[in-house]
């Protein structure tokens, strides 16, 4: 019985040649992303309240709070006029910061190809994050609207 199976395995291998390959041609066609998938982060700068929670919860210390001039950032109510700067070298896209953010300011976009050839480019300061927000989230707003995670937040500071 096993000899028959061995010949059948050759038949299966060869007969698999006729159906379509299962791999994506990445550089030509972009990879399909799902609606929950966590890509690059984006920051809606006006509503940020500078509460430093994302800085505290980040498991890989990728977020630092940076002093930002009030007028340039057009803050609505940011007492300390600080905003998170995310270093995408360290970020592991775990999604904790975007959950814990009380004003739901940090969003995950579906952009995953953010590699550059030097490390400094990956340090995104709040304004570049805001640009990403304007470009990616504002344009296809419907795709991200269902991003509002349905888990309501109960927040206890220590």
């Amino acid at each position, binding site marked *: 019985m096993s000899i028959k199976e061995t010949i059948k*395995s*050759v038949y299966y291998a060869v007969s698999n040649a*006729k159906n379509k390959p299962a791999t994506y041609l990445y550089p030509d066609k972009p990879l399909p992303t799902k609606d929950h998938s966590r890509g690059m982060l984006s920051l809606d700068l006006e509503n940020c309240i500078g509460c430093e929670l994302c800085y505290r919860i980040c498991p890989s210390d990728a977020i630092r709070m940076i002093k930002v001039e009030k007028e340039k950032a057009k803050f609505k109510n940011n007492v300390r006029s600080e905003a998170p700067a995310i270093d995408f070298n360290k970020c592991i896209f775990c999604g904790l910061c975007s959950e814990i953010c009380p004003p739901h300011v940090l969003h995950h976009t579906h952009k995953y190809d953010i590699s550059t050839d030097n490390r400094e480019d990956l340090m995104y300061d709040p304004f570049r994050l805001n640009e990403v927000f304007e470009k990616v989230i504002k344009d296809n707003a419907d795709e991200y609207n269902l991003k509002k995670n349905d888990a309501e937040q109960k927040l206890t500071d220590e």
Partner: protein
Amino acid sequence: MIFNEIYSMLAYYLPPKANLIASALATFVLILIVLIATPIILGWVDRKFSARIQSRYGPIYVGKFGLLQNFADVIKLMGKNFVTNQYVDRFSYNLIPILSSALSFLLIALLPFGAPSLTFISLPYNLLFIYILLAFSPLLIIIASWGENNKFAVLGGFRSAAQITTYELALIVTFISIGIVNGSYDIINVIGSQSLIWNIIYLPLTAVVFFIGSIAVIERAPFDLPESSQELQAGWRIEYSGLKYGLFMIGDYVKLLAVSILFVSLFLGGWSGAFLPGIIWFWIKTVVALMFLMSLRWSLGRPRIDQLLSIGWKWLLPLSVINLIIVEVMMLI
């Protein structure tokens, strides 16, 4: 053969002594063309076919359907510098790639390419000469692996030497039985005498034994133990890089082509076929044999070295000897 015709056309202009040089030159150029063409075409077919089996695309970006991919690889291999390990024994390290690839090129020169006239060298006993060329490679491999001064290489080298020597015996017995049936050891006569009944109907057992033996001798498909990448990391080729490694790759594909041509001409009756002209029949059969050989590589696992040798000694050798006896009995009736 070929250059006799070319030479007869040019004979009028050339000085009397020129025919020798011309023939040598022509052989060299033709062999070179075939040797550059085979790895590229075969390499492409192998990669595309294996990609489709594993439901992926295979080379696509270089050239129209990835056709130039192998060409680019060969150029890349040429471009790479030779990283030689300082403990390597210089002489044997540099000698073996040239020798072993020359060996497999010589193999090509003996084989017919579709028509009685289409061979490079015609010898009345070239079957035996082919056998000697195949039997010679384990010696080179041992020298190479010992010269590389690397544990994995030594393991791989001895494995391949053991494997090839066991399967050579089975092959020689099959050659003898073919010689008896067809009365001569020259491939062209063998093909000639098969025009009515192909050998495979005559000697089915020898065909099977020859097929398994030839796979083991060229170290491919399920018996690629010496360079089993999972265990010994490319076995005895571990220290080579750049074009030297490229030479081994070319040698592999050339041997693959040689074995399939041998199988077709010895058992499937070379260029004898119904209405199509001989040469087309020949190449159809070779391509079919090649595809089957390749599909084996991508669908079967790999036996252990001692199991492989036990198959060789306990199964293949007795089978071929029994077959030899049957052939003699048949000849007597």
